């Protein structure tokens, strides 16, 4: 192919590229709604306030480990892993939350009342 041919080809193609750039395919409203719904379902929750210890009956997972204050970060993460398995992965979006709730609204994915998460581990 000669240089002249290449230049003519580029000129030919540029007309097509210009036409195509002027007409980008647009996402449908349905697609946009699904994407926004996915974002809502996977939105990380702001961290719960630090729970205050209260005496009282009932099962508290922290009791198994001698209390939260006795646990280091690694043990806390291990407990969190147990909690994720217990309560469902949807509240921890970066772990496995994407597997759930693609067709559901935020309110239908949460298994716990808002804010109840970590507090339930030590409060009753």
């Amino acid at each position, binding site marked *: *192919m000669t240089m002249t041919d290449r230049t*003519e*080809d*580029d*000129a*030919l*193609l540029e*007309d*097509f*590229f*210009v*036409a*195509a*750039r*002027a*007409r*980008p*395919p*647009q*996402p*449908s409203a*349905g*697609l*946009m709604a*699904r*994407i*926004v719904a*996915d*974002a*809502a379902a*996977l*939105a*990380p*929750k*702001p961290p719960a306030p630090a729970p205050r210890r209260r005496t009282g009956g009932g099962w508290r997972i922290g009791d198994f480990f001698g209390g939260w204050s006795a646990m280091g970060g690694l043990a806390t993460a291990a407990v969190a892993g147990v909690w994720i398995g217990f309560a469902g992965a949807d509240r921890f*979006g*970066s772990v496995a*939350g*994407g597997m759930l709730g*693609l067709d559901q609204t935020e309110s239908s994915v949460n298994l716990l009342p808002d804010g109840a998460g970590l507090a339930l581990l030590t409060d009753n």
Partner: protein
Amino acid sequence: MALDLTGEASDEALLVLYGNGDAAAARELSARLAPLCHRVAMRMLADRAEAEDVAQEAMLRLWRIAGQWRSDEARVSTWLYRVTANLCTDRLRRRRGVGIDDIPEPADGQPGVADRMMAADRAAALEKALSLLPERQRQAVILRHLEGLSNPEIAQIMEIGVEAVESLTARGKRALAQALAGRREDLGYDHD
């Protein structure tokens, strides 16, 4: 939020906000970035249903990693281009391959179709010609000439060197020119 600065925030800043639970940031990001995923997927796959699936999956992956996004890493748009391109590659490899020799027939000639056709027809002709290219050439041409990205950015997206990008775009353009040149008259292409 007391102030609505989402319109001026960078994609990266919005992603961090979303990672901290800001729903408005996600809506702004969706408005900015979902069209990117969808547009590239449509041009790569030429199938609306598949393109929508790819776009939704690419954005889903973005939402999932938002909490770990590091602002000193690649730009969000670069990351999304790469994820979208890889998802399209997966889909294309599942389809039966189509060879470059399968040149499309010229549009059926109605009497008087020697008239100049609308630019929309040129866009459609390009879309069809693109679908004939090998996937990597198609990807490079779309990113360079339809998305307007630089060769270094395309190299990042496709995870190859800049020279490889240039080679792919050159070969892709030659093949496109071959496919489209046969339709110059049909498409009202008046160069002399």
